């Protein structure tokens, strides 16, 4: 006898065998990467006092792209002093209108050089060119453009109060959206009248250094933006420097806690944008195909190196089999490989260290009894790669459900009632984002107000905009970036 299940099986489409794509590589001929990069301090590139350099490699080829200076304590001190001088000499005296014009310049020049930035971002970080081209770079430009306009309108931002800049902002950014995170940090800081010492992550320094060239070309007063490279020790020197008036950090919750602790007793204000473990909740009445796209975008966007990734999928029981079947079919169409290929959906894992972390979690999940499903796709022979992965048969207490994996690994759980899924979704120390899929508006608002997180996407996921505040509840951090709320961390209200 033929059952419904057999019919379903027969009707499942075969996406893998007949569908092939010719390579469509984005050219990198027009991009120049120097052999060696120094520190951008006081408006020019200077050799590090530390005398040391480290290599930045392409995670898709494992080949070295450039040597980059490692800023030591003395270098950090020089950068902070340059920022202080720039604050006292130029920036705090300048009108908001003129500050704004400089920031507009940065926005426009990024747009002009968008292709170059996109290619370098993909080479240095491993993300697909489609994403760096269509998301990272345009959003970075938009962020500068948005905050440029605030610079001469700050008197209207906070009713009853005027704003005063904090002074020198020390900013530390992660490797998952290097140019975009630099924009999230630099744009509001400059608009509100602060000067900046920014440190990009050690695995992805190149677009920040290219940005330094651009800022120099834009003729910003020397020292208003200083960009110094290095690893954790450099970051720690920025955090602990007494001349820094405000700290803004984006990165892991673990490091965020260390920063918060080391700032205790200093009176230095700080904002933290940390990890997440977002619940992506699909109700029975959701449009399934649309939800599948959202799930894929939620967890596989940028190889899952996204703090707000929809890494915990909750499916209402009645549709679980159908949805997971569709999800697997869709996953088989994903193209994993060369980040510079315009067909690529999923690029390289950012570093060997992160590759080890992700593989370690997959192993942990299996040891804890999870069932695994991975795409059948081939992986390139060199570089760091992880196949898009589903872990099913997991529960709240599993480490893969509780901890941030920061890779293309999705855990799947089922639920019966809204109350149950709210309980499960909130049962995490994180609170950065969440997703809801349903056809019913009232249900969206009911669930979205119960989810304890700073961003909720309804029938969409991983959308960003400069006007839209972003940031976490609970252990996902404090403070908002983007929008009017994003001004507040950089000002004192008087």
């Amino acid at each position, binding site marked *: 006898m033929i059952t419904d299940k057999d019919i379903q099986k027969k009707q499942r489409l075969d996406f893998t065998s007949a569908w092939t794509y010719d390579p469509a590589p984005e050219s990198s001929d027009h991009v120049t990467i120097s052999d060696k990069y120094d520190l951008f301090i006081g408006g020019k590139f200077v050799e590090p006092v530390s005398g040391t350099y480290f290599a930045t490699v392409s995670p898709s080829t494992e080949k070295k792209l450039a040597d980059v200076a490692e800023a030591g304590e003395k270098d950090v001190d020089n950068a902070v002093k340059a920022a202080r001088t720039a604050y006292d000499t130029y920036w705090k005296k300048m009108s908001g209108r003129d500050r704004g014009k400089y920031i507009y310049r940065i926005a426009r020049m990024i747009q002009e050089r968008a292709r170059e930035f996109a290619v370098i971002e993909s080479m240095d970080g491993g993300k697909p060119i489609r994403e760096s081209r269509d998301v990272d770079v345009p959003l970075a430009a938009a962020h500068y453009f948005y905050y440029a306009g605030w610079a001469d309108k700050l008197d209207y931002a906070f009713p009853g*109060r005027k704003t005063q800049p904090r002074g020198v902002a020390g900013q530390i950014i992660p490797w998952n959206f290097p140019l975009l995170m630099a924009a999230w940090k630099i744009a509001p800081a400059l608009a509100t009248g602060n000067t900046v010492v920014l440190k990009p992550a050690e695995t992805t320094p190149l677009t920040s250094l290219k940005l330094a060239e651009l800022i120099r070309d834009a003729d910003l007063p020397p020292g208003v933006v200083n960009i110094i490279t290095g690893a954790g020790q450099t970051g720690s020197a920025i955090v602990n420097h007494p001349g820094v008036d405000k700290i803004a950090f984006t990165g892991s919750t673990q490091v965020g806690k260390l920063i918060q*602790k080391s700032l205790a007793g200093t009176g230095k204000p700080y904002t933290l944008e940390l990890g997440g473990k977002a619940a992506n909740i699909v109700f029975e009445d959701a449009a399934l195909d649309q939800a599948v796209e959202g799930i894929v975008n939620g967890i596989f966007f940028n190889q899952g190196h996204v703090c707000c990734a929809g890494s915990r999928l909750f499916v209402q029981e009645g549709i679980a089999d159908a949805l997971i079947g569709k999800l697997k079919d869709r996953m088989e169409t994903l193209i994993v490989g060369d980040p510079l290929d315009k067909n690529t959906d999923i690029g390289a894992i950012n570093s060997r260290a992160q590759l080890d972390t992700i593989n370690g979690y997959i192993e942990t999940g299996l040891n804890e009894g999870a069932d695994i499903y991975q795409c059948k796709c081939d992986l390139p022979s060199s570089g760091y790669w992880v196949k898009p992965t589903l872990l099913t048969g997991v529960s709240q207490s599993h480490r893969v459900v509780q901890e941030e994996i920061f890779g293309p690994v999705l855990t799947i759980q089922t639920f019966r009632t809204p109350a149950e899924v709210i309980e499960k979704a909130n049962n995490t120390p994180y609170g950065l984002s969440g997703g809801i899929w349903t056809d019913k508006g009232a249900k969206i608002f009911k669930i979205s107000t119960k989810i304890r997180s700073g961003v909720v996407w309804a029938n969409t996921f991983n959308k960003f905009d400069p006007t839209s505040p972003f940031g976490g509840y609970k*252990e996902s951090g404090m403070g908002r970036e983007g929008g009017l709320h994003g001004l507040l961390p950089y000002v004192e209200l008087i």
Partner: protein
Amino acid sequence: MADRIDVQKTYKIYIGGEFVRTESGRYYPVTEPKSGKLIANLCLSSRKDFRNAVVAARKAQPGWAGRSAYNRSQILYRIAEMMEGRRDQFVAELKRSGYSAAKASKEIDTSIDRMVYFAGWCDKYQQIYSTVNPVAGSYFNFSVPEPTGVISVVAPEDQPLAGLVSVVAPVIAGGNTCVVLCSEKSPLTAVTFSEVLHSSDVPGGVINLLTGQETELVEHFSSHMDVNAVIYARSHKDNLKRIQENASLNVKRVVVRNEKDWTDAKHENPYTILDTLEIKTTWHPIGV
């Protein structure tokens, strides 16, 4: 000898809407500053008392936040009404704690007026802090404030009533619940304030009031993993540093409000409410 032997009050702590003694069985004497005469034996609250209070505060939080803003506003206003009715009692207690009549009057007047002030904000701050965000895409995108959650509060040591009201009113106006350490040497008005709360329709657990020692309790106020933020309104630098270090255990927000004069009108502003709010942004597609 007096005509009548007066009935003295037992000053208890207030947890989950109930007047309880500390589970530790410990006490400390509070005396009249001039005569040295014993006023009462106050509870020397323990870590366990604090933990019980956090459980009560957590339990009460969703319900309190879920009430309509209009309802919360009326309840805060009701607190002010009840304080007005007990005005003489507050003045008498402040005088026993060494306040002059004029200072005591100013303290209670400020406290009542400040409660009315924040009552009025309960259904308005949302409109100040919300935004509709013009994103470049087909989405209706908006940001609204939500309460941070459970807040532990180390209330001011001086100006024991005006200080307490100034730090607690914004917290509950914003839909949070709290556990408060009251003034150690002048705790009388704080305990009487808990009786006001009890008769003001404030749900049990929304405000929990403990008496005791700062140096003993700040450790627990700042390290408890189910507390979302700490407000520190005193001036002890070592204790503040300890709070800020412990806060990193679960990324608590730390709000420092070390002020000289709590009767100053500058404490009346909505930005103190913002200190214990989180901004939530929701993306909703537009389409058919």
